[in-house]
């Protein structure tokens, strides 16, 4: 591009060093530690930190059913959270992108707000709703739908509900972005050529929004996989997910090496899941 070429002539090579702190920071505090983590997963302690003592022991400990359950549970949580988010988000994104004119910015602002708010505060807010004496139960009792209050907090249901509403904005934004880039004339053309609203949606609107759906799916799936706050606060301490397990290893039992191995294992599983989902998308929609 013309811009870069001229700037290139203008910047001399010695400035390379001025530019490097940011990159160095990333390398020093992200990529090297990452490799480091992968490395220490093959050791048992820092005293025996040499080639001779490379071992797979950590992994052997982890490849048991109980750990598999934890990883599987986290995968299901992340996967279904993404699906539920999608079901609720798509109509919202569609409405904002294609149906609203005047209040669009205000509505978008309010949607983006929880995106940037602390999860902890949001979770705490849900306590008031989901508690045994909370608003949801009071409402149901008053309406006569149930005779006794439900125990929702400290169950998986609570986790799924709160995850859903906390991650909703993550899915709405990308879908909204791809829908708002749609050329509305193509929709008009579709109707003009005789398509019904449903045909227009399934043939034109939805396929063209798929990139946004995919982005949203990953924006929800990947963080949900390692989510710590929500399962910990709402799970009642009984259910372990990857996030809480990692915290357990590193902070409570200080078994850094086992923790490293577990993290690597989970990471591998995450990558595999991500590839699986990519394949799924291709299969279903291309």
């Amino acid at each position, binding site marked *: 591009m013309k811009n*870069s070429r*001229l700037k*290139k002539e*203008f*910047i*001399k*090579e010695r*400035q*390379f060093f*001025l530019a490097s702190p*940011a*990159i160095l*920071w*990333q*390398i020093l505090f*992200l990529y090297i*530690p*990452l490799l*480091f*983590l992968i490395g220490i997963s093959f050791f048992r302690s820092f005293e025996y930190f040499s080639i001779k003592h490379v071992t797979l022991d950590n992994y052997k400990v982890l490849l048991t059913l109980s750990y598999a359950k934890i990883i599987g549970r986290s995968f299901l949580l992340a996967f279904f959270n993404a699906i539920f988010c999608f079901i*609720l988000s798509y*109509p919202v994104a569609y*409405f904002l992108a294609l*149906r609203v004119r005047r209040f669009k*910015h205000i*509505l978008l*602002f*309010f*949607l*983006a707000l*929880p995106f*940037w708010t*602390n*999860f*902890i*505060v*949001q979770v*705490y807010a*849900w*306590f008031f709703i989901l508690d045994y004496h909370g*608003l949801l139960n009071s409402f149901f009792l008053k309406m006569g739908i149930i005779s006794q209050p439900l125990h929702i907090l400290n169950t998986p249901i609570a986790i799924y509900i709160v995850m859903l*509403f906390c991650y*909703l904005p993550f899915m709405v934004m990308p879908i909204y972005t791809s829908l708002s880039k749609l050329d509305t004339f193509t929709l008009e053309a579709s*109707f003009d050529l005789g398509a019904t*609203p*449903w045909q*227009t949606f399934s043939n034109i609107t939805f396929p063209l929004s798929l990139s946004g759906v995919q982005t949203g799916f990953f924006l929800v799936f*990947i*963080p949900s996989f*390692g989510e*710590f*706050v929500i399962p910990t606060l709402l799970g009642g301490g009984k259910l372990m997910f*990857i996030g809480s397990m*990692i*915290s357990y290893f590193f*902070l409570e039992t200080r078994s*850094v090496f086992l923790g*490293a191995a577990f*993290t690597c294992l989970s990471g591998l599983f*995450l990558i595999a899941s991500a590839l699986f989902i990519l394949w799924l998308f291709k299969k279903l929609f291309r």
Partner: protein
Amino acid sequence: MEIRSRFSRYLLPLFVTLIYLMVYAPILVLILFSFNKNPLSYEWHGFTFHWYRDLFKSVEVFDALKNSIIISFSSVFLTISMGLLYVFYGATTLLNRYIVFFYGSLIMPEIVLAVILLSLFSFFSVPLGITTIIVGHTLIGLGYVVPMIRARYEEIDYRLIEASLDLGATQNQTFFKIVIPLLYPAIISSALLVFIVSFDDFLISFFCSGAATLTLPMYIFSVIRSGATPEVNALSTILLVVSSLVIFILTFLKSEDSGILR
């Protein structure tokens, strides 16, 4: 105008309203109850500012707040300065290619970032505390700042830089007198962004803080864990308001910048 099926004309707005309500109901309830004379019961006992006043008396809250602010401001300072340097002086194609390095922190789940930092610090026996948290927050912050400032930088008319040099300014003078002022919107936006991300951050703070340091989110977490106290409602409300304000300013800036302000 297109055809709208009966579904999308009536059901859709209803559905969307419902979703917005469900997203905001808990938060609104929380805010409401922070003014409740007895916030831990679900009945309304009367309006009061009591809990807010209590907050100001709490030493722990002040400590946590102090830490959060120090950490946030430091992170902002570091990310902005390093980010600016990278964007301007790294504009050679060589470093341009390495911009992908900054996407790493955005892709990984935050808990992974937290533990790799913890491992690193443990190995080198670095004492955990405010500094280590700042390191982590800066790491994440760079992932926001660099793309944002870079995008804005690419939009600058290169002829302005040429004109500056033509009139006799050195590279550094051009950087400070021309480039940075032109980048102000992006700088302010990304600074606000890093601030709020750092201020609200929990995971990195939780893992990299060691025994002694508490940030505000960490404080709230521990209080909820051990049994909520009334002040937490007030504190959460304050946190919400602060975040909202920052996001509001950000949105306002962004819309001014792209000219869609009404």
